[in-house]
């Protein structure tokens, strides 16, 4: 335990606190940091770029979290039964989880290229034409990066649900069947309540992950077109690494941490309250 804490303290907590300190300075990487108090945080409030990134982040999280979790549950229910190809499909759904998003995002960008992309081409064959291309159209870029985000993560949540499903004693279902309960009541009365712990963990993890969305956006759109897909982490990168305003970038990050923290606590509270009723 002690070596762990030492490593954590030196290489994780210490840089984190430094970042916290820097958020109160005008640090520009190449010159010493100067304490400016809450100025960076004050600037956040009036910065339209921050407002935009905040809205994008919430939008991204609000869509991808329920969609990923819902799909994951559906897939888990389907793949928990005996059926042909079960192993293949389970593996196929999980494979995107283990491969690098930075790498596949290149493939996705190419596939979605409106002029020579295979997927765009096939879609246009069946009459779905995006004139500008999915990633370049301001209205479609966000849904496109969301779709890739879901594609990447759904397998992980599915496996967690599968785990939950397998820990439900079969006896319960048999008893329900004897009582003549149909599929839906069995799900409603047995599966869903017994999965509530799993759901809590998955929703919280998914929310944390989606609020930090970065990888595929970085590779596929760089936050564009005109900041339509710029999330808070993306903004941190742009402001810190591209414009050298590291103090301000740190403030953006800490605003995000605060947001994640509050949302997670609300979720904890919500699930805990509900867990009691079962």
């Amino acid at each position: 335990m002690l070596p762990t804490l030492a490593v954590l303290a030196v290489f994780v907590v210490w840089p984190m606190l430094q970042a916290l300190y820097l958020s109160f300075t005008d640090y520009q990487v190449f010159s010493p940091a100067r304490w400016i108090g809450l100025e960076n945080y004050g600037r956040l409030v009036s910065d339209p770029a921050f407002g935009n990134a905040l809205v994008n982040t919430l939008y991204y999280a609000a869509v991808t979290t329920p969609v990923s979790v819902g799909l994951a549950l559906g897939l888990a229910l389907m793949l928990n039964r005996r059926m042909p190809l079960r192993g293949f499909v389970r593996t196929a759904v999980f494979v995107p989880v283990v491969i690098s998003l930075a790498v596949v995002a290149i493939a996705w960008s190419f596939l979605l290229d409106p002029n020579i992309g295979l997927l765009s081409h096939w879609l246009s064959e069946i009459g779905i034409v995006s004139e500008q291309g999915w990633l370049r159209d301001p209205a479609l870029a966000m849904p496109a990066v969301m779709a890739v985000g879901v594609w990447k993560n759904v397998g992980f949540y599915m496996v967690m649900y599968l785990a939950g499903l397998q820990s439900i004693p079969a006896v319960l279902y048999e008893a329900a069947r004897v009582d003549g309960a149909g599929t839906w009541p069995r799900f409603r009365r047995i599966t869903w309540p017994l999965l509530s712990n799993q759901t809590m963990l998955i929703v919280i993890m998914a929310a944390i992950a989606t609020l930090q969305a970065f990888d595929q956006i970085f590779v596929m759109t760089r936050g564009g077109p005109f900041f339509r897909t710029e999330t808070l982490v993306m903004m941190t990168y742009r402001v810190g690494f591209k414009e050298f305003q590291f103090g301000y970038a740190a403030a953006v990050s800490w605003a995000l941490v605060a947001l994640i923290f509050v949302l997670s606590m609300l979720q904890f509270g919500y699930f805990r309250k509900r867990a009691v009723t079962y």
Partner: protein
Amino acid sequence: MRLRSRVRLVTMTAAIALMSTACAGQGQGSGGTPAETGGAGGSAAPVTLKFWNGFTGPDRPAVEAIVSKFNASQTKVKIEMEIMPWDVFYDKLLPSLGSGTGPDITAMDTAQIPQYAARSVFQPLDDMYGPQAIDPGVLVASAVDATSFKGKKYGVPMNFTTLKLYWNKDMFREAGLDPEKPPATWAEFGDYAKKLTKDTDGDGKPEQYGLAIADHATVPMWPILFWQNGGGVVSADGRTATLADPATIEAARHWVDLVTKDKIAPIGLGGADADKLFQSKKAAMEIVGPWMTTGFKEAGIDFGLAMPAAGPKANVTLGTSVAFTLSARADAARKQAAQDFFAYWNNKESQVYWAVNSGFPPNRTDLTADDLKESPYSAVFGQDADKSRFYLAGVQEFQKVNETIFEPALQRVLNGQGDLEQVFGQAAKEIQAVLDSAQ
């Protein structure tokens, strides 16, 4: 309640951790000064210079060859080169230069230099120039000038080129145009582009475009059109935003209309997308530099090269240059070593080799056509250097002006999100604020 107590806990932990790690950090820090970047103390050992750049393209072998020739040519200086994509290069430069573990010399686009020079990351190199060392008299003047920031030169040219219009001769033929006659005026340029745009299946999305023009993540293409009408993003002296000037607005309106109404070019292309479009024969014209000649040739395209069509006010194209820079931390010995290398790079022999093998024009103006006869493209890109202009030259905050303000504004207009005058007017104000704050 619960939440508040948790928050308090976090603050407390933070404080404790801070105290304990402060001690730990000190203990480890004083443990000994590790040897960094192979510093050469004695006079016998060669001075090793870490050199980072982003020449990942087809010009990479030429860069590697000259560097190894230099290393072999003498024993005093050894260049250790790392080549990485430009994106990676800039991301790595930031933390490494800040902490002194970075490269001694770099090569970067001259437009990027002021951002670093303003933060004293590089040192001025004015005293490297002179007839004995690096003679500015034989180098392309605009490339040397482009390394200046606030009256000092922070770089030595590594390459220089103008952008030229590429056109696909087969597509010209198909559209009934003379394949040997590129457009010479704006009227012809627009007219050709319209003729070369084809929507064969009538779904409203052309299958073939007249022009590939990138609006973000690219070597500047749109600003050339603004200059040709007497406008621009920022004035030539880098002090005034001119994005809202009538000349700029007029040029932008003309070409934005052609793109959005006549669909002569797709919207939202990055630089690489535009290249890919021309390469896959889906666009008939593109304004770009010599680095694409290899790829286009490999794709089997019969293309021509010419000065971009002249605008109503000016016949101008973009000049762009990558320059060597030297870290502010480098001492006199390293500076001398760097100077030796920069001078070698720009000597006649190296420049002939560079021009012939990279397709870039030479940095020197004293090479003859005979020297360059092996390279068909080098000469073309070297022509009209006097009609070239550098984008955002001398502007300190290139990144903010270009990528944070200008490109998004242009994309907004192209996507019909707001009126041109209003969007560019707002952007001009923001650019002016950035320019003023850097003064």
